[in-house]
């Protein structure tokens, strides 16, 4: 039997997954940008202060996104449609999302703060 309502259910699972992992996705995106930019820019001879500025900018942007996730989870939920907080797994999933966003923010801050101590494009 073909279920006409099944597409929304499958899409809802992908949306829920994206909602729960939002904080970690931001962390992953930040790592990809800072590592990718640093690798490419240094290989192409871009000035170190420019590379450092890009890393700092990416870090502030990622932290801003993490803060938005923590402060306004309902805003992103309205787009990704996870179960509502009053349904059985909804509150649990929102709490997991918030904790993962905290973990992701710590990872972003940890990686981004390296720019304060280590020069860009310097030898390893």
């Amino acid at each position, binding site marked *: 039997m073909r279920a006409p309502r*099944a597409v929304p*259910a499958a899409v809802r699972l992908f949306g829920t997954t994206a909602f729960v992992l939002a904080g970690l996705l931001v962390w992953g995106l930040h790592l990809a940008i800072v590592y990718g930019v640093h690798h490419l820019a*240094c290989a192409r001879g871009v000035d170190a202060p420019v590379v450092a500025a890009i890393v700092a900018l990416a870090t502030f942007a990622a932290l801003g996104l993490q803060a938005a996730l923590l402060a306004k989870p309902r805003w992103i939920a309205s787009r990704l449609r996870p179960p509502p907080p009053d349904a*059985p797994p909804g509150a649990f999933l929102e709490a997991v999302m918030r*904790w993962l966003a905290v973990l992701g923010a*710590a*990872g972003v801050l940890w990686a981004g703060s390296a720019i304060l101590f280590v020069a860009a494009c310097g030898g390893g």
Partner: protein
Amino acid sequence: MLPSLSDERGPPNSWPRPAGEEEALRRIWQRPGGWRFPTAVNNTVIGALYLGAAFVFFVLAGILALLMRVQLASPGNEVVSQDLYNQLFTMHGTTMMFLFAVPAVEALGVLLLPQMLAARDLPFPRLGAFAVWAYIVGGVVFFSTIFYGLAPSGGWFMYPPLTTAEFSPGAGADFWLLGIGFIEISAIAGAIEIIVGTLRTRPPGMSLEKMPIFAWAMLVFAMMIVIAFPAVILATMFLEIERSFGWPFFSVDGGGDPLLWQHLFWFFGHPEVYIIFLPAAGLVSMIVPTIARAPLVGYRLIVVALVGTGFLSFGLWVHHMFATGLPALGLAFFSASSMAVAVPSGIQLFAWIATLARAERRIRLTTPALFILGMLAIFTIGGLTGVMVAMVPFDWQAHDSYFIVAHLHYVLIGGMVFPLFAAFHYWAPVVSRRRLSEAAGRWSFACMFVGFNVAFFPLHIAGLAGMPRRVWTYAGELGVGELNLVSTCGAFLLAAGILIFVIDLVRNFRFGIGEETNPWGGGTLEFLPQGVYSTRSIPRVTSREPLWDRPALALEVARGQHYLPNAPTGGRETLITSAIEARPEYVIQLPGPSWTQWIAAVFTAASFLLLTVKIVVPALVCGAIAIGACCAWAWQLDKGPGGGPVDIGGGIRVPVYMTGPAGHGWWAMVVLMFVAGSLYLAYLFSYLYIWTGAPEAWPSPSVLPPPGAAVAAIAALGAAVAAYVLAERGLDAGRRMSLLPWCVLLAALLLAAGVGIGLHAQWQAGVRPTASSYAALVYTDSLLNGQLAIAVLIMAGFTAARCWLGKVDLRRRACLENTGLLLRYTAAQAAVGQLLLHAFPRFV
């Protein structure tokens, strides 16, 4: 609208049940015996076989370790030759990582997940059986190479250029590359089974926040395999192609870069550590509450820790490359991630300790409890030294020394082997008629715990004193002779502990249904009364520890008072529920015993192994037989919607067939596309990485194939998708049924033509794969897309045959949908490839 589980108090079915229900279940789920044993697909048989094979490889790799320890017991020893020593440490590491650790935890998933979820089986039993037999055949042949001097000797991570044909002639490296690549494919098959099983075969009411922690751990584990393993599959493809055909991916002379191997290998290799650890942590989170007789402290945070660890572990791979000369700031990013991942690991440790501290009564130091306590001590030390080596300056001092050997054994044996032995003792009553001996378990634990620490703690000091790893022997002047002698003694004590366990296993383990239902007083569903059909009925779950919160549940389930107490279609079935809330959706009709998956596994393994030794024609014949067996296996799967809907209890009626995004086959295909996507992303990374190192290998726009070739290729790909969409719409409208198989075949041929046009244009432009790293990468794109196109062609032929035989219609269309999914994905990937190969060189 999904059915709601209205009555939360009483069981959904009345009692007594009609006569003959249980007898029918027992007959349907009977395990084949004797010479038909290879046809078995029951998860208990397959899981036990998988676990047993993994344990045999553990013992074999342990014996290799003892040989190494004998060689290293004193300076200047010559018990084994230098070349054999190199083979020993390569085979020890490879066997432990690829043939023991990952298969063992995957086996536990196959064995325990259906029991923990009260499912009758996982949704793809034959796929699980295929994975196990492929692993056993491939693993046995691979391991046997040590006996006739054909074993690889480049270390378990096989770095080029040491492992290129120039420096590692002979077939040893080829056995590693093709053998391990093949075994990883079997691990991916198991991961698909576990993901769909965890998300779709939970009992009604077990929404995500009530899922056992082990199920969470296995879900994260399987997702990690899907993302991580393709990277090393691509790396092994690159290296094998370079060794066999001279395409220069890693040779600097041709514009390649040996560091690419390290990036790809460790993008897999570091998550591999957590792929091994997280399921073991899940086991600990299941055992600790029973030991403490209290619910797990911080369930929510442990879920956060599992997901967080799995995710963060993909940002650590460069910490294995701190000594390769990468820029310092780049190292700092990965050093930060390496320290950040310690946070979720710490959360789990503290949650376990808090749960033990919350125990209402004094903790009984049973064998599982002892192994858990031993794990806490050992893994904590391994974690602390892990934070040490995550710091770049310290890593530079300790790199490639015995400090690293000690660290990784503390992490892996503490984090995985001790929990595994706890699990053996804890869950043996679920699959054995008798428990394992407590007395033998205590002796085994004592020898293993003391032996392990005596063996490996001194190696920290030996490493700091300057002893490099992977040395055949060392000079007495280094001053590490005594430390090594102590370490060797400890290794034999550790082996004695394992020998005691093996003797206990031989004396007490008897595969079958346990005489004791819940010997430890556990609260989760695997301790419900079991039969060959799993549980008599599938319970409605209202909490995380249902056996503690509803003491009558075991009796109700055994009486058949919960869902699906019978076999309404007369065959093997289990209940499929929604992924988030676990509401009943449909009854899946499962396939029974068959030779097909066994023949497919054996001949796939044979094909790979014959290719390894360059016996091409028999390899192709074996491959063809394997594909034929797969088609025969798949032919029997789609049983159609006849017989439904059926009553599963509590007034709920559900269908017995589902296609589209609600169907389990659709989910498996989506996961498979994630695997293909991850492989292609690894390829894109490789392309860009090689370009950053050797941009001079990229041609000028004037010598590139004309842009018209890309346009033609993309047009053919688009036409393939359009033909397929027309076929599907024709079926939806009930029109042009006779044209359906022809449209399907036409779409697949157009897809193959699209890939072929791109390849032909490169050849016509004079690009040859052996000429440069750029050219090798261009042809790899065609290789990746071509193998998918061949798969689509086979699936299209299969679908067309089913159409001609009247086995595809408006409702019965699973094969049509799955072929369509892969065709669309392949067309999209090939189009991205054309854009990359034609646009990128013109814009840089």
